[in-house]
């Protein structure tokens, strides 16, 4: 085979390798699926404390991703955080009494928002506000409160694991 043919072919393979790398980066590594391009609508939620929540954090129901956090603002009057949730368009049946909680994946993992639908028969629309919210669990605060209660109630079943405690916290507020 002449030299120039070899060069042409290897350059072709090189460009192809680049294209494959691009596809791998998109599909396998960033997990881009057709879902990621879905249209979304925005609802808002106020939180006393968002902990380590960031834009791009996941929004889930029952552990399944249904959107992401697109913006976090501070409400100067109420001293609260206003979080914008971009929810996939086909999830159009979030009840108006849906509650939002900032949860943690694992003990030190990423913060994300978990939604729990309620029982209303009206649904949230773009621009609506979720009233029932549950701030992030701040570990230090929680331990402080827990110790205080433990002393008060002389209740000492205090060997719960991290996951238990966060569940306990949610239960307590519900």
């Amino acid at each position, binding site marked *: 085979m002449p030299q120039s043919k070899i*060069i*042409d072919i*290897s*350059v072709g393979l*090189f*460009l192809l*390798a*680049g294209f494959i*790398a*691009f596809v*791998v*980066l*998109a599909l*396998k*590594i*960033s*997990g*881009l699926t057709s879902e*990621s391009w879905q249209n979304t609508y925005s609802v808002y939620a106020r939180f006393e404390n968002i902990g380590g929540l*960031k*834009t*791009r954090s*996941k929004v889930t129901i029952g552990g399944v*991703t249904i959107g992401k956090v697109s913006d976090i603002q501070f409400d100067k009057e109420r001293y609260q955080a206003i979080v914008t949730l971009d929810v996939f368009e086909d999830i159009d049946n979030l009840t108006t009494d849906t509650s939002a909680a900032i949860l943690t994946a*694992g*003990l*030190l*993992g*990423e913060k994300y928002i978990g939604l729990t639908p309620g029982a209303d028969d009206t649904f949230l629309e773009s621009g609506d506000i979720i009233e029932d919210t549950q701030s992030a669990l701040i570990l230090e605060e929680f331990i402080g409160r827990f110790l205080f209660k433990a002393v008060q109630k002389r209740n000492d079943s205090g060997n719960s694991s991290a996951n238990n405690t966060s569940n306990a916290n949610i239960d307590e507020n519900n």
Partner: protein
Amino acid sequence: MNNFLMQLNQFRNNITESLAAIGRAALLLIQSLWFIPDSKKIISLLIKQIYQEGVLSLLIIVLSGLFIGMVIGLEGYNVLSGFGSESALGQMIALSILRELGPVVAALLFAGRAGSALTAEIGHMKTTEQLASMEMMGVDPLRRIIAPRLLAGFISLPILTMIFSVVGIWGGYLVGVRWLGVYEGSFWSNMQASVEFGEDVFNGIIKSLVFGFIVTWIAVFQGYDSKPTSLGISNATTKTVVFSSLAILAMDFILTALMFGDH
């Protein structure tokens, strides 16, 4: 006092010379890209240059990517397992490679492998009057020699960077999942959950485009502007590697601040 004045004068000359060099470099860029040779010719010239700059750099890029990914896999595992969060290994490997290590290391290797070769080649052409004789044939070396080399560099580095990143992440996977036993499902799912295509992958590619532009520009200019002697060529080659490396690191800081600075 006299000595001080001499130094001051020297300093002023250095600054003037640097400014003049920047001016010449800008002129070179404009003149070579203004009129690119006609499309049929540029394709065959480009293919040859992509072979020189891209294909021939592939081996070093793949090997370095593999080792760097493996090292991050190992180090990352050691750090993360201390917190019991080995499952975040995939995310750590992918983000560090996609955002920083991939674009930067690939560009540094590219400057050392392809950039220095470009400078030496063009410097040699100048020293042996090949550029001058081409000019006398009515063929503009800026278009015939410089332009395809610039374009090939702009194209090659982003491709090399993407290949570097994929191989690097695969290296991390080999060490983390295959060797150290991180659970495969959480390795990938954590990675996919945290890697955002638009933000991380795309910004990495933008970085590599910028680096490719800078490195080839510096390399080609240093060759074209070199003194037509052996020492001149060797100085120019050194300058290419040093200036490109510094420019890559400085631009990386600026780009990172612009892209990821707000969170």
